[in-house]
């Protein structure tokens, strides 16, 4: 009697992640099409409309890229933490605390040079994100508490804090009872180019290369890889694995915090519960699809930004915007399943 087992392939194609992504996207479009057909919509019409309205003009392309910024930055943070085999589920909370930190500094300081002011505020956002992950980082390194749980739970605390702030101490009397803090001054708005594109996008490009360098080309990245591979090998090599994990977490949180800062300074211009629309969670999908590769996160982040914009505008023809969410989620599932078959093969073996 023969049986079948899964065995790891010795050689995995370099482009396996990319192919898996394409397969995942294809599966997602198929699933999306079926759902549209059930709703008596013509899939090709809907998809071409989505395409046109998300990347068809400079303005719509800019909107798509603006939406991509928080996904990319938070995704990069997640991928840096993953170098030491840690998962950051708390990007959502880090985005909020990044924005809160920006507002806190904005309220309490005044710098006359606007460029310098913006830079100070962006740095505050980064630090805010790091502070958000500080407790999970300490509990992980000192007590070994699972970071998936702690970073996830931190989200609820930070969102609670945000609700408290915008209903209490920071509530803007002019906001007609809408729970939101006061707008920041126009002098600290991130300037736009080509009409709508936020300069935050260029910060995002810069940080993509930064994350790539950190992960792939730096001594720190190397030490993170070894520590992530085997804690015992790290000890043996004289690498302080706990220290690497700690800093990877702070940097990862900082990236998400920066996303919150850019979102505040370029989109919402004030702290409210609408700072993030689940960017921190979607970023997990983005990072996972790309196998934690920074350049891939940048590209898939842009695509997901476009999908979100496309999804929002097709509501005008009576199609739910959730079609975009369905496509994003099924791309991940399809890509992960495809990735599995690139990494493993089914083998027939003799039983006994």
């Amino acid at each position, binding site marked *: 009697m023969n049986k079948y087992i899964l065995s790891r392939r010795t*050689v995995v194609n370099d482009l396996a992640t990319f192919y898996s992504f394409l397969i995942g996207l294809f599966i997602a479009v198929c699933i999306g099409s079926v759902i549209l057909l059930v709703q008596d919509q013509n899939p090709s019409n809907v998809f071409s409309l989505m395409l046109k309205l998300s990347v068809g003009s400079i303005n719509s392309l800019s909107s798509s890229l603006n939406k991509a910024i928080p996904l990319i930055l938070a995704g990069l943070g997640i991928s840096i933490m993953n170098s030491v085999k840690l998962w950051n589920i708390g990007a959502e909370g880090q985005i909020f605390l990044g924005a809160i930190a920006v507002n806190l500094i904005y309220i309490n300081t005044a710098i006359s040079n606007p460029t310098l002011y913006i830079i100070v505020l962006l740095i505050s956002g980064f630090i805010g994100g790091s502070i958000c992950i500080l407790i999970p980082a300490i509990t992980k390194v000192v007590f070994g508490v699972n970071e998936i749980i702690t970073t996830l739970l931190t989200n609820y605390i930070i969102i609670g804090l945000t609700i408290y702030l915008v209903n209490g101490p920071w509530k803007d009397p002019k906001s007609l009872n809408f729970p939101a803090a006061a707008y920041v001054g126009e002098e600290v708005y991130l300037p736009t180019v080509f009409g709508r594109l936020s300069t935050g996008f260029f910060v995002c490009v810069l940080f993509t290369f930064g994350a790539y360098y950190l992960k792939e080309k730096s001594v720190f*990245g190397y030490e993170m*890889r070894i520590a992530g*591979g085997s804690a*015992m*090998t790290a000890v*043996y*090599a004289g690498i302080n694995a706990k220290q690497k994990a700690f800093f990877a977490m702070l940097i990862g949180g900082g990236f998400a915090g920066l996303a919150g800062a850019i979102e505040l300074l370029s989109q919402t211009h004030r702290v409210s519960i609408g700072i993030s629309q689940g960017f921190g969670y979607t970023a997990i999908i983005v990072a996972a699809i790309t196998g934690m590769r920074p350049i891939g996160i940048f590209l898939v982040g842009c695509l997901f930004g476009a999908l979100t914009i496309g999804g929002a505008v097709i509501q005008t023809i009576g199609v739910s915007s959730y079609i975009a969410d369905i496509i994003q989620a099924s791309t991940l599932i399809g890509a992960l399943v495809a990735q599995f078959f690139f990494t493993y093969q089914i083998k027939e073996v003799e039983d006994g």
Partner: protein
Amino acid sequence: MTEKLLEAKNISKSFGKIQALDNVNFHLYKGKIHGLLGENGAGKSSLMNVLSGIYQPEKGSITFKGERQKKLNPELAAKLGIGMVHQEFRLIENFTIKDNLTLSKANIYINDFEDAYKKYSEIFSLSINHDSIISDLSVGEKQKIEIMKLIFNNNSIMLLDEPTAVLTPQETNQLKNSLETLSKEDEKTIVFITHKLKEIKEFTETIFVMKNGQMVAEDLKTESVKDKELITLMMGEISTSVVKKNNKKGSVKLEVENITLNSDIGGFNNLVDVSLNIKSGEILGVAGVSGNGQVELANIIAGIQTNFGGNVTIKGEDVSEKGVKARKKLNLSYIPENRLGVGLAPGVSILDNSVVREYFSASYGPHLSKNKMVNYLNLLIKEFSIKTGEPKAEISTLSGGNMQKLLMGRELISNPEVIIAAQPTRGLDVSAVEALHDLIVNQRNKGSAIMLISEDLDELFKLSDRLIVIYEGRIIKEFDIDDANTNNVGLAMAGVIE
């Protein structure tokens, strides 16, 4: 000793290319305690897994009470009353003792649990209420519950895989008494697996010895068998190949004084007052049955294990308080026993693994030069004739021999002055072993001080200039290589000093 309760004949089992069991014969007598002795990887656990139906052998027959069992699977084994305690416990941690003991549908004391629990907790000197949660118990107590589980599930044949590995000496003594009671009063048939000679002599009535997947001795009477006989069986005959020992020795490079390591927790071993020194151009062999403190000693010298007493001096500098990197700077190399997991990081690329020792020398400040790394790997590949695939590929795609060559190459290419090599050739094929021995001798001739820890007496006799034997954390005997032979070294390994 008449009735053979269970008999296994010509059992063979292989995993891929590795022949785990090679025509093995084994039998059990009712109500006796049988010892199964052998080195790590000799095939003891594989044989037990076959008897408990977990592995299906490719060849061979198993007879139970005279009846041939053609398709022995775990279910059937349970029905026949064959139960096994694995090295890793299989208890449900957040259940109570009672839940764990009565979980199986095979359990026989469901109605009179209280009485049975009282009886057996006395036999096992266990003073814990059965409402306690498993995770609150000590390792030794969990072990007892595991064995009790076999009794409660009505197993008459109990296979115990290295039960004493996690126990303190006191607990080991208790276990011995409990097992004796079980075999006498309950007529339980027990197989006791170990690689510790002392225990096999104390615990058992009859002894089987395995080596390299073969049963090299069957049914030896424990009372009459000699320690050295067992050692020879377990270790094999010594081949005569010996490298030339005309090497010149220089000044002392490594000095270890009064090393003491205290551990009350199971998991690692004590060291007691260990002192040694190694000169330049000298190979000091460290013999001993595994688990007598060798790994701990190597880790202390390499700077991995901290919290020890005593001093480690490398090239005249006291490094006892210093870390791994300080010792590397003094040009110490460590080839750890655990190839994949300590020496090499699994899941990480060949390239990354090839520079673990000297990655900082491939850096400019925070920048890590990929070119330098690739050049370094290529140098290793060339110097040590390593067969590798893509540098980016995962380290585990290499064969065991090539992995070890990469690891040794990486540790030896900088011409280290002090080398600690633990089990450098374990599990490798003959040609790889030869190549690695040449590397070690070559390094000796270049003037390195080498500490060679091995369970393979062949290897130790072939390479060492001097030999120390470590037993229960102490250096029990030291030999000049010319005075050492299987007989006296084997006895020392068993803890017997003439």
